[in-house]
């Protein structure tokens, strides 16, 4: 994925695998309209999976059936890759529909400082799901001293159409 290089204002969208993209994207679009700005999406890989997977007794409980299976490091890697691919595809579709271009980057949660590579504290905007606020890396984001917009994009699936 191409890295942002221009001097235009950047809007950075921080997401993870459980983010509801629709509301985040809507917020990003609102701030892109009328501005000559670049859109950078940063996928924050969830380190917690890998840590949890290192424990021999960790189980993954299926959302659909309630059945459980071993959550191994291999499974964590698999889940991680799938999540990245799925979110990237969804973003591509949204970008196509909105007729805009975007940059896609992946940052592990434990190396949150890398986010500084993509954002300039003085001028850029960071949009993130509100549930990031409880995460350890959020403090890193907060230290960026840039404008941060937290959007309700709930971690647990509870959109009305899911009923």
């Amino acid at each position, binding site marked *: 994925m191409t890295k942002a290089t221009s001097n235009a204002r950047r809007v950075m969208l921080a997401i993870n695998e459980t983010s509801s993209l629709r509301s985040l994207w809507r917020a990003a679009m609102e701030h892109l309209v009328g501005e000559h700005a670049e859109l950078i999406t940063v996928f924050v890989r969830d380190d917690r999976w890998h840590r949890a997977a290192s424990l021999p007794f960790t189980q*993954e409980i299926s959302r659909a059936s309630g059945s459980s299976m071993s959550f191994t490091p291999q499974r964590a890697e698999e889940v991680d890759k799938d999540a990245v691919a799925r979110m990237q595809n969804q973003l591509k579709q949204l970008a196509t529909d909105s007729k805009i271009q975007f940059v896609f980057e992946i940052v592990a949660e434990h190396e949150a400082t890398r986010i500084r590579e993509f954002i300039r504290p003085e001028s850029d905007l960071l949009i993130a799901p509100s549930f990031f606020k409880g995460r350890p890396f959020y403090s890193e984001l907060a230290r960026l001293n840039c404008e941060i917009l937290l959007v309700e994009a709930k971690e647990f699936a509870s959109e009305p159409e899911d009923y």
Partner: protein
Amino acid sequence: MAGILEQTGFQPVPVTELRTVCQPIAIEPEPGEKAPATSTYLGQERAINAIRFGIGMRHDGYNVFVLGPLGSARHSLVEELAKEPARAKGAPDDWCYINNFSDPERPQALRLPAGKGAEFRDNMRALIEEIQLAIPAAFENDDYGNQLKTLEAETQKEVEDLWRSLHEEAAQEGIALLQTPTGYVLAPLSDDKVIDDKEFDKLPEKKRKQIKQSIQRLSEELKTRIETMPKLRKRHRERVRSLDRDVTARAVSMLLEELKQKYQMLPAVLEYLGEVEHDIIENAHDFRRTEEPSLPFLSYDSTALFASYEVNLVVSNESGAAAPIIYEPNPSYPNLVGKVEHRAEMGALLTDFRLVRSGVLLQANGGYLVLDAHRVLGRPFVWEALKQALLTKEVRIESPAETLGFASTTTLKPEPIPLDLKILLIGERWLYFLLCLYDKEFGSLFKVAADFDDDVGRSNDNVAAYARLIAERVRESKLLPLSAAAMARVIEQRARHADDSERLSMHMQSLDDLLLQSDYWARQRSANEVAIEDVTEAIRQRVSRQDRMQKKIVDAITRNTLLIDTTGERVGQVNGLSVLDLGEYRFGHPVRITATTRVGKGDVVDIEREVKLGGAIHSKGVMILSAALSARYAPDVPLSLHGSVVFEQSYGGVEGDSASVAELCALLSSISCVPIRQNLAVTGSVNQFGRVQAVGGINEKIEGFFAVCKERGLDGSHAVVIPGDNIKHLMLTEEVVEAVQKNLFNVYAVRTIDEAAAALTGMTAGERDESGEFPAGTLNRLVEDKLIQFASRRKQFSEGTGDDKGNK
């Protein structure tokens, strides 16, 4: 008038009897005058009474089979006679097919009073249009939106509460609830961070055990909550559905109320409207579907949703009108019974109750259906379908494949509709008799036979009525009026068509053809009326268009390719007369019949029969010859004759007994060695007692011999010998009559074989005297003597006393 047989005591048939002419008849109709309806159906009182009876009978099985030849105006009579009863019956009910909401594959039939079907259909269309607007509007209303949001918020809160409590519970125990794309993972926390295996191993044994227990317990809690989620979703959907139903019910009930009031006297319609209301409310969610289809071709079509509330009007009658009288010229299975059509959609054939189509059985239901029997019988499955409908008294619209059990695909089974109609089946007599013979159900379904007469007596009254009939048809067809002479000429031609000078043909199609063609020739000469010349020209032209075969035969005879002598005398050879029927045209021509005789066992061999060219009736005629010979001659001795009879140069089949007089005369000539005049031709059948009997085609036969003689030159020597009983059938062409008037040709009538033989041989036949002997010098004496001689020879041979030449 002098004739060639006068010297033998025969008088020719008077000229006046050769063609019974009609005096000119002037018909002067007032403009717009209508001839009495009965004149068209002159002489058909029997058929008319039968049809009226059949139409009037209200009981099952009293359908009418109208028998008669093609072109005898059966259709128009049937429809004419049905008009008044149809008016009296009035328009029957309308029928619709409507959706069966509980079983869409079995559309329901709905009965409405005449004229109400179309109204109800239009009412439902208008209702659908209103509903299409009213339902989305109701769902776009703020009230609905607020209620829906409230429901969603309630459910959302329940969900959140469930997870929040679990999160909190887990957090209290130092456990994180992580979410993966497909599920959840419970992991231990330390300083708000998920710990890995190394960190975990560093924990005290007690702590590790506690964490494991907590995770175990929380896992069970998690599973319980996961199991709760579908229930929450279901409950939410039910709440939304219930809300949708309430909103839809409010929107629809108001619209339906007006229709319910309108049709309150029709319980079936009210019941249907109730079903419609229930179905719309139950499917309320569908009517507000707004999301994009998952695939482009699955585009959402709102009209399809409302299609199930449409009304398929299959039988529509006008209120106050007469009962239907329908003639179906093409009674194919779908046209008769109806069909279920299909439409292609995405490569599949689909159907629904809107594609059920009625046939004429339903369209004529409550009235009269006129069908042609040969068409009904000639089209696959139609006869059985018609009987089935009449027997079960209902119309079941299904394909023949379903009826026969060959269909394996699912299709509609529309509810049968009760049937109450009168079938008027029109056909030829042979069809009626075959059906009576071979179809055991026919008699119980068609109890009334209306038999059309082919012709009517030529009384003065009937001639006058016939003239009125002609005038009426001329007027109806907008043809030039006929002069009095032309009218008479047409009537004469109708007698000729009937093959009887004393009757007039009621074959209306041929009459119309003659009138149309006469009109054509009159217009060709720019005349204002049809003159006798135009009628004559029409007849002549019609013959000339069709007489190619006749001309060929006459030509072959005059060139001696076909051997027919018209001069001199020959032993055992006679000119018979034959008729060739080419469908629309028939003509006569002479045929040479020869006979040979010798001593034998008393049998006469019919060579035509031996080679299987003779029909049964012809063979019967020849066998009668043996019997006639035995009965008339040498009754005390065995008939010891071997005779053979043949139609010379006949290469096709021979049928009929009209040559039996000629054959017997040829045999008598051969036996007696008395020659037969070749300038004569003879026709007639004979019985065992020698009585000459009438035959068919008498006019064509005489004209056939006349044509040959005319080609060779008429000199007054030529004549035809006919049965006396055929004189009344004579309606010869004017050309023949003119030739007879000029003594160039003659017709003689005979009553017995003696008269025929005497006419042909010029020798007196002779009658037995007091001693039982025929007088010497008579033909019969010669014949008897020869037969006695044959018997004697045969006896000698049987005793072994004859020589090799047959002499003693």
